């Protein structure tokens, strides 16, 4: 498709329509992406070098001051470490569980369709509302989780430090990871299910005749053939979990102090009064996203897909 310039010039009039035609069809899409996705990135980078008042007025150029004050935030190290734990932990657990769930829901049993429908409920629901029901369930006075734990004898007293799961950073983070896994499972399971369904039955039948056991079949057939699905699902989960805001916001607002905050919620908290600094953190967040996207494009071999 490459044309050298001197070839193009004389023919330009004739070729004007063929050159413009694609724009008519894909132009609106490019425009929308430009306005909604690309422009904000530019504004964000620009803001990260501006001094902006808490009420949103640009006071002037800040140079690298926003980045410097961000890096001198005492909470930043903890936030970064927590983000890593949050993303890696949630995605790893999600993938392991959904691997098992996909196997289970791939098996034939009566009522499978209905059971699969149940699986999509947390996927279709707003994550924010799901987080709120968990917050309710963990209420230290009469949350249903505490009521059950109390009946089991695990919880000794209501309204105690032990019952206040979301008041302590460690247990709060653990519970929020549970919620994050819970809402990530449906997509991952469906992604792996669709991977499993693409493995022809004959492959298993052949192995069956060979007398291979379940574990052996899983290790030598399922896992390798499922690998692309696992990698893609995991990467999409990494993006989702990294950008996840509602779970932490609704359950702890990132507090006490910033001890349950990740980079995304920390960015939001900063945005309230420290807009420039928040933009600086966004630039870092965005760079991380770019790296993940590049990995994604590589493993999905985007060129094959575009074909």
């Amino acid at each position, binding site marked *: *498709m490459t044309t050298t310039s001197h070839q193009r010039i004389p023919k330009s009039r004739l070729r004007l329509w063929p050159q413009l035609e*694609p724009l008519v069809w*894909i132009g*609106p*899409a490019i425009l*929308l*992406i430009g306005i*909604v*996705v690309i*422009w*904000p*990135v530019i*504004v*964000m980078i620009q*803001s990260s070098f501006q001094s902006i008042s808490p009420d*949103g007025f640009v006071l002037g150029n800040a140079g690298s001051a926003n980045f410097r004050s961000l890096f001198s935030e005492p909470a930043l190290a903890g936030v970064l470490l927590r983000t890593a734990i949050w993303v890696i932990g949630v995605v790893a657990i999600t993938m392991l569980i959904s691997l098992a769930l996909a196997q*289970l*829901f791939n*098996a*034939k*049993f*009566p009522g499978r369709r*209905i059971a*699969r*429908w149940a*699986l999509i*409920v947390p996927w*279709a*629901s*707003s*994550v*924010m*509302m*799901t987080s*709120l*029901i968990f917050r309710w369930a963990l209420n230290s006075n009469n949350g249903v989780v505490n*009521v*059950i734990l*109390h009946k089991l004898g695990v919880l000794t007293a209501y309204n105690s430090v032990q019952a206040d799961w979301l008041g302590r950073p460690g247990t709060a983070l653990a519970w929020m990871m549970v919620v994050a896994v819970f809402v990530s499972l449906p*997509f991952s399971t469906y*992604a792996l*299910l*669709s991977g499993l369904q693409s493995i022809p039955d004959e492959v298993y039948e052949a192995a069956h005749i060979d007398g291979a056991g379940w574990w052996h079949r899983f290790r030598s057939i399922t896992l390798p053939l499922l690998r692309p*699905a696992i990698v*893609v699902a995991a990467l*999409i989960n990494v993006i989702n979990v990294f950008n996840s*805001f509602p779970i932490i916001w*609704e359950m702890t607002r990132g507090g006490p102090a910033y001890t349950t905050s990740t980079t995304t919620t920390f*960015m*939001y908290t900063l945005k309230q009064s420290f807009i420039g600094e928040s*933009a600086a953190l*966004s630039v870092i967040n*965005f760079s991380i*996203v770019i790296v993940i*996207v590049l990995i*994604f*494009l590589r493993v*999905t071999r985007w060129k094959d*897909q*575009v074909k």
Partner: protein
Amino acid sequence: MALRHIVGRRTKTIVIAVAAYLIAILFVLPYVEMISVAVRPKSELLSRALFPVNADFSNFLTIWSTGFGSNLGTSLQVAGGATLLVLLVALPAAYYTSRREFRGRAVFLLLVLATQMFQPAAMLVGIQREFLSFNLPSPIISLILINAGFNMAFAVWILNAFFGSIPVELEEAAMVDGCSRLGAVRRITLPLAMPGIVTALIFTFISAWNEFLVALTLTLGSSADQRPLTVTINDYIGQYSIDWGHLFAGSLVATVPIIVLFALIEGRVVSGLTAGAIK
């Protein structure tokens, strides 16, 4: 021997079925709890009984007097507007890229694939400041644009795959029969691609309906009746401590129709989200 085999198989199926049902119940349980809170009378909100004793559906009635209806309307405008916009923008782009080879096609599809992985959270500050500078008359317009922009990739991708699977020959045959190109697309291609179109529309609608972060950022300054549902429900927190009854009654009203819609497209969502990387 054969009988034992069949019996063994049957037990296996039963075990699998029971396990799957249990897990299915586990997935629905939090939402059952949502119902159980929504129907608790105020007097039982502090009770430790697992289920309300005197279930009472008044929260589902009184919520409408809090202005919830207009919030529902705003959510409908945002989600409906975004869905329409995605349809208008993604349909031609997906059709053209699946039918034509042109310069920049690969770059365009790469752009789409990349935006699919982007989420507003990572560029929120930019979004807020950019859309403010536009001075739009209502944040609803901003929300429509933003939701459309971030969900368009899914639509382009799934429609591209659908159009790609419909042979060009079908269109050409129709054209031989006297249809114009557009007529052929309208009579042959679009109906065949309808499942893909429906999937794209429902998916966009649901994402826009459930979107929280951008809505929270852009409509916190709007008057209460112009906020979408997610922001309103979030508002029940902190008002006279937490109005749990209305919060979950509202959540259910907002969620149940969405789950039904999602069930319609359940089988096709994955291929759109993974951009077909998992077949």
